[in-house]
């Protein structure tokens, strides 16, 4: 089963290697990973999709929390918006371009580059949607493809933020696990 974790980390050099190293070292499988700085420039947010059972996810979470540079680890549940982005270069000539465009329209993807024999398609969506489009385009000679890891935000007012100790975000002694 796949789980999405949002990890707030110090925006230091080398932190990503510490996080990814932990996964390989402890035998956890990363399905995808995306990282970028947040609205607070001192904090980066890593979104990790990890594959495993409840035990694995609990272990991953605890081991991540143990890293000094990791500020917060949160699990993102079903009530969330998850997106990936893919760029797909497909061979398209005057004969089949129209068919391809039709497919792309169904998926609400976009064409971001057109040349005589090629198209670049941009699609955002959850993992399944992108995979579905890729499957459809396989009939038309995909020449090159890049795909990002998933990023995710909880819906509604729920937020994953670092709160300073002084403001009572962390209460010493109340951490059961």
């Amino acid at each position, binding site marked *: 089963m796949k789980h999405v974790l949002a990890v707030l980390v*110090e925006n230091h050099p080398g932190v990503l290697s510490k996080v990814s190293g932990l996964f390989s070292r402890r035998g956890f499988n990363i399905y995808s990973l995306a990282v970028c700085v947040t609205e607070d420039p001192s904090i980066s947010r890593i979104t990790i999709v990890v594959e495993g059972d409840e035990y694995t996810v609990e272990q991953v979470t*605890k081991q991540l929390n143990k890293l000094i540079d990791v500020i917060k680890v949160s699990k993102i549940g079903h009530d969330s918006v998850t997106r990936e982005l893919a760029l797909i270069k497909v061979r398209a000539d005057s004969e089949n371009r129209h068919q391809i465009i039709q497919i792309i329209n169904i998926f609400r993807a976009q064409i971001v580059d057109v040349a005589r024999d090629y198209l670049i398609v941009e699609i955002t969506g959850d993992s399944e949607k992108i995979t579905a489009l890729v499957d459809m385009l396989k009939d038309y000679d995909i020449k090159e493809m890049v795909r990002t890891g998933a990023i995710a935000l909880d819906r509604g007012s729920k937020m994953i933020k670092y709160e300073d100790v002084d403001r009572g975000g962390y209460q010493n002694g109340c951490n059961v696990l």
Partner: protein
Amino acid sequence: MKMTGAEAVVKALELEKVELIFGYPGGAVTHIYDALYGSNIHHVLVRNEQAAAHAANGYARVTGKVGVCISTSGPGATNMITGIATAYMDSIPMVAITGQVPLSMVGRDVFQEADITGATEPFTKYSYLVKDVNDIPRIFKEAFYLASTGRPGPVLIDIPKDIAMDTLNFEYPQQVKLRGYKPTYQGHPGQIKRMAKAILGSSRPVICIGGGAVSSNATEEIVKLAETIKAPVASTLMGIGAFPGDHELSLGFLGQHGVYAANRAVAEADLLILLGARMGDRATGKTQEFAQRAKVIHVDIDPAEIGKNIEVDIPIVGDIKTTLKEMLKKNLNRQDDGWLSKVKEWKSKVQGVGHCTQGLNPMEIIKTLSDMVPEDTILVTDVGQHQMWAARYYKTRKPRSFITSGGLGTMGYGLPAALGAKLGCRHKEVILIVGDGGLQMNLGELATIVQEKAEVKIMIFNNGYLGMVREIQQQLHGERYYQTAMKGNPDFVKLAHAYGIEAFRVEREEEILGNIRQLLEHKGPIIGEFVIDPNANVIPVSRREDDETRIGSVG
């Protein structure tokens, strides 16, 4: 105050009240050594960087302070890795300082360059590559804080040569600010209540202590808890000493190589209270069979250890001492219903090492030693059969007095660790038990012991074999002994004399007592070589199927 980076390093060490560091100089740390020259910090020159880390480890364990070691870049740093990993596995507070090639050269594979922060990533609690001289005060403050708080561990600081030469305005921070690091010391009150209830409802409680019980200095509280709830106390290898070995509630050493009473009690328990014990594989055996009848309470400062190896019913994240103090305020008076008398019966069943005809019986030596030494003696071991014999038959009566490489099982640890232990506690007797194999791994440190006038009493258990592996070959490989006989061993007595160390050899049983007395009474370092029967095993062959080592599967 204006100073160089190197001077700032030494200044920071002084402000952290470091009195002693272990190290080996080299091209990338000459400026730091130059700054040390004018300092009151005593530098111990070891013979191999690995020994610097082990010595700092031994020093840290006996004193409870942070051990400090230093080496140059490249091979100096990589030699230290084994020592750093050893400290990490046993959660020992340590700051390791390495020199690095100049920052401008980093990444170009220049002479004596090694990516040591990268290489030690898996077994440091945290590591720093200093990129700005102005960061030195903050980094040192943080490093000592990280090494010694929460679950302790080694922290590495890699200092490029040009950074050490650069100048800064030194100002030592008063506080550290690490938003990703906030260890929980106080156990959750609700969980403590649940724990108290579980204790009152139990009829066969057992306490099991680990290294966390030692590092949290919780001996007083553990004794009080055991006596109040009338529970016997078993100990993992790392927990030895945190509960007095001569206490009537002490069960002794638990695990695959543990003693009958400890394993039997854990197997029969209906409540198991784990205190700072991570329950590694050598302590539990097959986890599916471990303590099956017991409800498990696990108190640990590291939440990641709870539920990692065995299933836990009541988890409590917190420092052992702080949490037990809170716990002891509750009513825990439990009526004992024959449980302790059963335990007492099991304790009387002591298994030996088998019949010894071709040399001395190691159990007899250790038991004799155990009866003769002062109460606060520090026993250091290396790794192997002698280590298990010591864990089984030696009664450690005080905390921080049984020093051994538990998690990593690093051969060669003993000699340098004993050196560090002695330099940390010169007023205490420090005895090293070491095999002929392990001693030769860091043999050069005999010179360091002489150089530092460290009165370490060394007992070589010489059976001419890598005994632990020999035992495995005997039992699992049909006695096909291969590469375990230590051919070409030196004459250890002559060798000791070459170092100017007093030495003797013991071959007859009736000489054991007198020679141990000589060892203890001698002023200065001394080596006693005890010629052990190579057939002596940790787990006697004839008892292989006995339930002793089958933890948790009794009944």
